[in-house]
């Protein structure tokens, strides 16, 4: 059964209360490494949102009109990954053509969006929660924006503490993980506002 949720509420819920990275801890690798630099964080956030929206929409169509009618759901993981990989390939070509500076600064993390677990996570949530197409669309856009906002916030905080006297053992990844933990707790504050599951 399709859950009865307003799409606008779903959009905000997936940005704040159910933030894909801060509530579900998906897509952490690039979240940690790219957040060193605010500008590339912005680029990667945009790229992830783009890939997420397009690939989740394609996956929805394939799931509903091909996999389900032919009783092929057991193959869905392979299909989802192929779709995501293809979308990332196309995005990579577009970015290389349009902004070589961004292409360079994203480096290996651009092709690695393919294995960004946030994207496969959203695709699987879409299936488990039985969203309809419109809800799927808003849910994936929201999750993308949520990831984008989170990486921007983290990059901004990291820039702020760049010169802070962090103990040697906690430098870089260590303090970043602590910050992410604190951010996740802060985002928990949103959970009273909206709740959709």
């Amino acid at each position, binding site marked *: 059964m399709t859950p009865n949720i307003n799409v606008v509420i779903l959009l905000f819920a997936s940005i704040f209360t159910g933030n894909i990275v801060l509530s579900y801890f998906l897509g952490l690798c690039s979240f940690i490494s790219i957040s060193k630099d605010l500008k590339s964080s912005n680029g990667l956030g945009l790229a992830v949102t783009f890939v997420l929206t397009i690939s989740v929409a394609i996956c929805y169509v394939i799931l509903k009109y091909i996999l389900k009618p032919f009783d092929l759901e057991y*193959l869905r993981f392979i299909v989802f990954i*192929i*779709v995501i990989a*293809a979308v990332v390939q196309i995005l990579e*070509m577009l970015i290389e*053509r349009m902004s*070589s500076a961004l292409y*360079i600064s994203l480096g290996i993390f651009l092709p690695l969006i393919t294995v960004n677990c946030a994207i496969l996570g959203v695709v699987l949530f879409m299936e488990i929660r039985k969203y309809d197409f419109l809800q799927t669309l808003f849910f994936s856009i929201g999750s993308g924006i949520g990831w984008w906002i989170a990486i921007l916030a983290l990059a901004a905080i990291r820039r702020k503490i760049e010169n802070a006297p962090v103990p040697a053992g906690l430098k870089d990844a260590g303090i970043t993980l602590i910050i992410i933990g604190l951010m996740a707790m802060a985002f928990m504050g949103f959970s009273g506002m909206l709740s959709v599951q």
Partner: protein
Amino acid sequence: MEYKFLFDSLVIAGISTILALLIIIVDSIVNNYGEVTISINDNKKVIKAKGGSSLLTTLSAERIFIPSACGGRGTCGACKVIVTTDIGPVYPTEKPFMDKSELETNTRLSCQIKVKQDVSIKIPEELFLIKKIKARVEKITDLTHDIKEIIFKFNEGVDFSFKAGQYVQLEIPPYEKIKDFTQRAYSISSAPKIKDKIELLIRLVPGGILTTYVFKFMKEEMEFDIIGPMGDFIVRENNSVMICGAGGSGMAPIKSIIEDMIDNNIKDREIWYFFGARSASDQFYIEKFRSYEKILPNFHYVPMISESESGDRWKGEKGMITTVMDKFLKTKIDKNAPREGYLCGSPGMIDACVKIMKDNGIKEENIYYDKF
């Protein structure tokens, strides 16, 4: 039941095909840069080519060969060109090969940058002289268990002029699991006086693509493409004492340099040549160089081995090349005369020798080397 599996596979194949087609379509639209113009050395030569490939391959398709010891994989840093058009920031893959002044003059690695627009570049004039020609393997000789001396003969009428110390790139066809043509750089070990042949020394590198081919498949009478000559590892014409150091197949350019001196009758220059090998059976050309010592009165050949095996009848120097070189620099070679270093061998050996030479007062700018 078994038909269901076939059907499922077909559906997956269908989905993959559609996505692949989509990628191909986007690729043909997005990566189509059309025809671009490359202007070399202020319009001295202008080429029109299809955009989208690396500058190195685009130029070599137009028969302009930028030196590239690694064959365009971005590991040797040899294929530098100056790009005067703004083509965006330097890639992280280029940075390790650039010093500050090169970054300021917009020097780029031609194998790493794609030609996406009209560009103007600057390359040294002598690169126009580099040619790609066919050569036939005339003779293969085993010098040691892992070094072969290979003589390539050019076709009638070819005049292959080069300077002693320069190198060529040898191209081999695909074989076994290697699907592409492979190029690697080898110093010429014969003297420039011989213009219809060149001699290369090739040492087997375990797992090396080209050297494995040479040792397993290269036979006499086979034909290969040779690109060259390239490189600036040449003798500076002055009167300073030449201190040469080499190991293994690093012998090649220095042999060429010494033979060139014999051919040109340069007898007064003092030359010390330290040649290191692991054991006596890894030493070669000893008699040849002893005979050169008789022709050139100021040439001293110092072969050495680093392993002291029991029952070894080795009479010469023992120890690492750095130890022996240090000893000679301190005791036998005039410290007050101007001295120059010429080194060829593995990066580790060169770095160690450069350090020893600097410790003994030879200026770094007077030490020349080819790292392969």
